[in-house]
């Protein structure tokens, strides 16, 4: 029997970047809000011994406990999906701050092209371009210009250090902080790409280039370039991390309560409106109902999608017909990369920061002509110096066996004599790639796991191949003695780490027939439910997603406050 708790004006599910921002902004506006986070509480003091590669980077100490919940995966409709039993391809966060605790901090704005991708592709190349590639391409129901101020709000909150991108969209403001330092590695990449006629710039970074105070009064320290960002919390408080940058402010308002170990299992609804959520205290297994006027889902892509499906809220997507919306347009990214081996030079590869790097957008979005290419979009190409750690960094030239004396010799030699560059290849939605509930496997509470049906497409393989060739050219221009062997993109594999840039499932748009939420991330089918995060992306771009996730969170808060005053569908 669930215990019903006193009603709140708003309940937030998940306390990562988006949940934290929403908590802070609603509480600031006087809304009584409660945040429910299934993981544990954490903050600066909990990152004291983070310089431990095994514990954090290899054993995933800060990440989701898959024994409680995972996803299942298959390539296509006719295959049996099996559980992702251990973490691999992507790393799911858990605990206050979510993945915002252990992200690298590379923070871009998606391109104007992204938000109107269908319209602009048709205008320039004709509809047959989309049809030839079998893409399920949609505009997002909002433009870059409309989102511009919200991007800036997030960049201030996360303290982005950066410089103008010569090919980037128009910015009304400078970045809050100057770019990070130039290193021999970033300089080498910039020189090579300039030689080739491209337009390099420093990666926009949520590792602070100087001491910085954000709009919430949080002081973030200057980055020490210690090399422990991705998969680690920052013990200096030098990374934009919600537990440092946002949550303390939300608590200070007096209007925000944060409950940990609260695993939400259902959005309770009737007559097209939510009345609250049901959750389990994961320690005591007690069940509670938290009534609320507004329900905000701000979990990860998987969590948001699964919660709507298990709650029977919104119409589930059908991959046979393309009808329905919940679970639609799941996208990922393609990661072409090249490693250069430098026999004559040695680099301080072990120094670095998660978002220290240089990149180019010459092959991203529609910044290059696709008329004669068999794909659309592209990817940001970057050379980052995130801090090579010794367990995971064992670059050896092609043809070397992965163990034994030769491997030992070469992996030691090239640890400080190799540099990698890679692209974040954009991922375009197709009808067959989607998310639904698994018919067999359950979580620790007896609810169905989310099932991912996903494989790479022809569009993906063509993009990967084309960008891969550009990477090789750049690496040779950088002066590598030899470069790694390039392979073609074939089937998606759930095992090796690729990227935690999963998107879609609860996508935004301007049409209730083809999207789940409007441009305030308000559900078409339930006006007091807002579903926030990369789950709203109608496709995935060639960048890290967090900048756009943050912008959408600020946009959504505006919607919630408007809804609080006016009610009804906001669009």
């Amino acid at each position: 029997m669930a215990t019903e708790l006193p009603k709140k004006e708003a309940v937030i599910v998940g306390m990562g970047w988006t949940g934290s921002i929403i908590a802070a902004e609603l509480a600031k506006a006087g809304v009584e809000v409660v945040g429910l986070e299934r993981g544990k509480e954490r903050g600066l003091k909990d990152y004291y011994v983070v310089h431990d590669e095994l514990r954090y980077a290899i054993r995933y100490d800060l990440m989701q406990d898959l024994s409680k919940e995972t996803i299942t995966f298959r390539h296509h409709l006719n295959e049996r999906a099996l559980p992702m039993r251990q973490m691999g391809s992507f790393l799911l966060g858990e605990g206050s701050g979510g993945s915002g605790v252990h992200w690298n901090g590379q923070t871009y704005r998606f391109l104007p092209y992204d938000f109107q991708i269908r319209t602009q592709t048709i205008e320039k190349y004709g509809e047959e371009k989309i049809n030839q590639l079998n893409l399920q391409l949609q505009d997002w129901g909002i433009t870059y210009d409309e989102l511009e101020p919200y991007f800036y709000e997030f960049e201030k909150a996360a303290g982005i250090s950066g410089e103008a991108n010569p090919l980037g969209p128009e910015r009304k403001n400078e970045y809050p902080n100057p770019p990070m330092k130039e290193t021999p590695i970033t300089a080498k990449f910039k020189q090579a790409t300039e030689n080739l006629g491209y337009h390099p710039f420093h990666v926009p970074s949520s590792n602070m280039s100087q001491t910085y105070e954000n709009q919430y009064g949080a002081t973030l320290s200057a980055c020490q370039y210690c090399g422990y960002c991705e998969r680690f919390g920052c013990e200096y408080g030098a990374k934009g991390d919600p537990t440092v940058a946002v949550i303390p402010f939300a608590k200070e308002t007096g209007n925000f309560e944060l409950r940990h170990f609260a695993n939400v299992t259902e959005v309770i609804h009737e007559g097209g409106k939510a009345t609250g959520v049901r959750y389990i205290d994961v320690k005591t297994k007690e069940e509670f109902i938290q009534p609320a006027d507004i329900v905000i889902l701000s979990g990860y892509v998987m969590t948001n999608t699964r919660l709507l499906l298990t709650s029977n809220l919104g119409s589930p997507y059908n991959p046979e017909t393309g009808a329905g919306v919940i679970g639609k347009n799941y996208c990922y990214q393609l990661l072409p990369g090249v490693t250069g081996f430098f026999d004559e030079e040695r680099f301080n590869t072990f120094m670095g920061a998660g978002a220290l790097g240089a990149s180019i957008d010459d092959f991203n979005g529609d910044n290059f002509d696709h008329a004669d290419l068999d794909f659309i979009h592209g990817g940001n190409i970057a050379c980052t110096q995130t801090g090579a750690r010794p367990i995971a960094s064992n670059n050896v030239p092609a043809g070397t066996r992965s163990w034994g004396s030769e491997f030992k010799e070469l992996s030691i030699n090239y640890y400080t004599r190799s540099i990698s560059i890679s692209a974040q290849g954009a991922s375009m939605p197709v009808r067959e790639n989607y998310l639904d509930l698994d018919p067999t496997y359950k979580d620790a509470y007896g609810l169905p796991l989310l099932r991912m049906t996903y494989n790479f497409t022809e569009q993906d393989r063509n993009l990967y191949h084309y960008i891969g060739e550009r990477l090789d050219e750049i690496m040779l221009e950088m002066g590598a003695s030899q470069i790694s062997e390039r392979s073609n993109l074939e089937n998606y594999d759930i095992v090796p780490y690729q990227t935690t840039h999963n998107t879609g499932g609860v996508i935004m748009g301007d049409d209730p027939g083809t999207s789940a939420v409007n441009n305030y991330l308000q559900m078409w089918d339930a006006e007091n439910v807002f579903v926030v995060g990369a789950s709203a992306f109608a496709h995935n771009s060639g960048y890290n997603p967090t900048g756009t996730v943050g912008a959408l969170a600020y946009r959504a808060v505006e919607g919630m406050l408007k809804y609080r005053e006016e009610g009804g569908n906001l669009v």
Partner: protein
Amino acid sequence: MSRRRFIRNSGLVAGGLVGGGVIGGLIGANTRTGEQAVNPETGGAQTGKVINFQQAPLYFSNMERFAVLEAACERIFPEDQNGPGAISLGVPFFIDHQLAGAWGYNAKEYMQGPFYPGSEFQGYQTALLRHEVFDEGITAIEKYSSDHYEGAKFVELDDEQKDEVLSQFADGEVEMHGVTSTTFFRLLRAATLEGVYADPAYGGNKNMQGWRMKGFPGHQMSFLNQIESEQFIEIEPNSLRNYTDHH
């Protein structure tokens, strides 16, 4: 000299040294016998024989089987002109300790059935826990060696023969109970490299010699003043121990 004083005198000061002497630091670290070049418990002045209490099995209870693990790790990361191998670095004990704990028992992995082999793209699908995978793997190595080398034990084979055996496992050519030999070999390889390069707190990477070989300085507070350097900088490594020297 107090422990705290010792660390201040050696570890932290050494951490600030730039250039030369790092490879030289390997000399005098008698790694074969469990002696340590520097004994933090008694102070740097005493460099005599010291008992390393971490070098004891917590998982393995049969030393013949432990010897198979030792021999296999040593072939994956052998002692050579670059420096110590897996055994000298304490890797077998690192793996033993890992198997005895949460990792060995798949504490954070989804282990609910039903189990199916799955495609090669669906990852770990065995019902076996990691410690059971190692148990099966060692049994299979012994059996394969005996079957193919006239009843010989794996540890009796020469290096080339050991590599032949391990290659068969790596290539998935050996029949195992409930798990593929590729899955076992990948775990063994990964755990070996972890033992070479994880913080010495875990029982491997003895005296940080795995790090020294690679030029990795372990945990350093800051590279703010070095990140722009055009020169490669050799730095005496620090371990997690430096965080907690006040305890």
